């Protein structure tokens, strides 16, 4: 038993080490930029991490920021596991949010059922928006990077158009979700939708590592030739990865609406859903494309998104810097052996 744990930890050490190293690279370059721009990085990071993790309210707000990121990370991660670059989470989040806002705001249903139905519709819409890219890949070999980028932008304009038709008395957002379609507020802005989100993360983990389908999907991604030889349909694996990704991204959109305290609606300019899909790519990479790793990565970056508010208020560092840090982490993680390369240089 102990041996298994030790072995498990040892297996973990390398990927976690790479992520930690990339995060350190990101934070260091962030610090460098602060120094160049005349700020004190120690004061800034102190304010940031204290604001994000230094109190219960900080933690709750951090988890709020982390919630959608856990999901969009899954979209990218499951794609990667199947050998696919699904960067379409952004658009799927928009459309998922539209679905949830529609059912949540316009269709009266009994309490309990309502929130479930609205969530389900958000997820369904996410899948519907993910499917065309999957089918284009399977039938026409259209590269998913190209198709998902295009679908992201189509989704942007389409969602704005739809918000215009789903608006209630206020033209700047959809009609707010009815009380029966809202998740309960736990504290700060955090709502109970986070339990649904974590449940989905665990389900995806089970799907990937504890079922035959998951095994086939991962084999199709890591070694398509071997998969074909074993009679596994690579196309099926691709399709499943897109569906799971769409479910996750759709839930992210739904969570921003039905768990989107205090407006409970989708903003017309996509203000409360924008960029989560793109940030999810970075979260997935930090979490080593693992649904559970993604949870921790999302909490880390949710902390950055939350703590930047304190960083700007207390240390005077403009909060946009945290996007730069994420971008640098992403690029560091794009290099497969960065840690090894650096080690070799300094030996």
């Amino acid at each position, binding site marked *: 038993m102990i041996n298994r744990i030790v072995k498990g930890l040892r297996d973990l050490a390398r990927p976690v080490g790479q992520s930690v190293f990339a995060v350190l690279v990101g934070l260091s370059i962030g610090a460098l930029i602060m120094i160049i721009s005349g700020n004190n990085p120690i004061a800034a990071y102190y304010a940031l991490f204290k604001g994000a993790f230094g109190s219960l309210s900080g933690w709750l707000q951090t988890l709020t920021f982390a919630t959608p990121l856990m999901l969009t990370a899954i979209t990218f991660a499951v794609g990667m596991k199947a050998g696919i670059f699904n960067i379409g989470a952004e658009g799927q989040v928009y459309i998922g949010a539209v679905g949830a806002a529609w059912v949540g705001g316009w269709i009266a249903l009994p309490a309990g059922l309502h929130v479930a139905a609205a969530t389900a519709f958000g997820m369904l819409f996410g899948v519907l928006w993910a499917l065309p890219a999957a089918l284009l890949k399977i039938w026409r070999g259209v590269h998913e990077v190209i198709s998902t980028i295009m679908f992201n932008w189509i989704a942007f304009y389409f969602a704005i158009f739809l918000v215009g038709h789903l608006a209630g008395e206020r033209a700047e957002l959809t009609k707010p979700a009815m009380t029966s379609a809202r998740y309960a507020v736990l504290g700060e*802005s955090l709502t109970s939708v986070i339990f649904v989100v974590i449940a989905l993360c665990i389900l995806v983990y089970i799907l990937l590592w504890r079922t035959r389908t998951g095994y086939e999907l991962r084999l199709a991604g890591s070694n398509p030739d071997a998969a074909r030889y074993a009679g596994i349909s690579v196309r099926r694996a691709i399709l499943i990865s897109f569906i799971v990704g769409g479910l996750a991204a759709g839930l992210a959109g739904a969570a921003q609406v039905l768990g989107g305290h205090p407006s409970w609606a989708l903003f017309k300019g996509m*203000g409360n859903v924008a960029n989560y899909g793109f940030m999810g790519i970075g979260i997935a990479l930090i979490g080593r494309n693992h649904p559970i790793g993604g949870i921790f990565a999302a909490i880390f970056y949710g902390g950055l998104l939350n703590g930047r508010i304190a960083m700007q208020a207390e240390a005077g560092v403009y909060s946009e810097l945290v996007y730069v840090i994420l971008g640098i982490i992403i690029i560091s993680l794009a290099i497969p052996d960065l840690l090894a390369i650096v080690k070799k240089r300094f030996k």
Partner: protein
Amino acid sequence: MIAKPETAVSKIYVVSDIGGRGDLSFNDMAFKGGDEAEEIYGVEMVELISTTSADYLPNLRAAARDPDSVLIVGVGFLLIDALLEVAQEYPDKNFAGIDTWTYWTALDAGITPPPNLMDIVYEEHKGSALVGALGALLAIHYDKPYIGGVFGMEIAVLWKFEIAYKWGAEWAVRWYESNYPSEYAAEPSTSIVNTPIDERVLYTYTGTFSDITKGYEAASVMYDEDAVVVYNIAGPLGLGINQAVDEIATAQSLTQGPPFWIGVDANQDWVNPGFVISSMMKRVDFGVTRATELVRKGLFRDVIEESPTGMLLGIGTEVAGIPMDGISVSTLADLDEFIEMGVAAEERTGESVLPMTPDEIRTTAAALRAAQPSWIWDAVAELEAKIRTGEPIADFDGDGELETVPAATTQVAVDYWRAIFGTL
């Protein structure tokens, strides 16, 4: 209400909606108010910029948690829900929302409107009617068929601008008809008086408050159609409109309009003196300084109690018994204040911000205004005087009753007036 020892530095927080400093209009005016409050009332202003709508709550809460904060201003109606929430969480703190209607939102949601949250609202429609009249009068003078308007995202606040702008244009045409009947009858076919009532205003909702290319493209089309003036109702998109004007000016070697454009929220006359004929000033800065003053004097909550629907700043309005306007069409006298702002920005950043020296700006702007016939300015002043009395002015919807400048804030009202003034 606020029993703070004078030794501690009181802070006012200005929480912007998405954007923050730099839009040359709405948000900048709020920060300008904060800067002024620092000078006048010795408070310290802290800016909190929201980069997404998920930032509203944490930003407002961060401000409320600061023990030194005495006033937290949320800038923009997007913060309505967040303000309502945090104001209830922190009943000891004072909150103000610019352009918000939290009172009504609270009632709709079945909540008692918090006694510590003040809506600060503006009569943008009245100012828009004035610049609409100004635009139409210029069109009459220069025999041009259209006036234009470039809007941001289609939201309720902007409907007020749109309908009133069109209403003001109609008022100007009617004014000209009754004051100069023979000239009116002799106007050439290209004059706006001969354009059908539902086609006079070329307008578009660009769907953005940040993509300046859309502002440029829209304004270019309008000037191409021979619009004499374009009203900027999209903050930073004025940069795009200005570019469109600049190109016409360069191509035809003009030093002075037409074509013109009209600034919004702030006084934008200095951006391109000679071509910005005027600005519809919405004094968000007054709102911030006034709220700070009320907090300082301990009157903040009394004023909320007195006028729960909000502190209304407009033309001929008053706050706590003291007359105070919040809407005006910029005059030459207003220019200095904003040139000073530009000079301060130059000192702060070390970059040149103003397009020419302050003196040149003053001379150019004065020359531009002097070049327009005085009856135009007189007519605008006449309309302003009428608006100020608050009495009904004209009947343009044909319902047999005189109306004041309409404030269209609902889809129903907008559709009603668009049926008259045109969707085209």
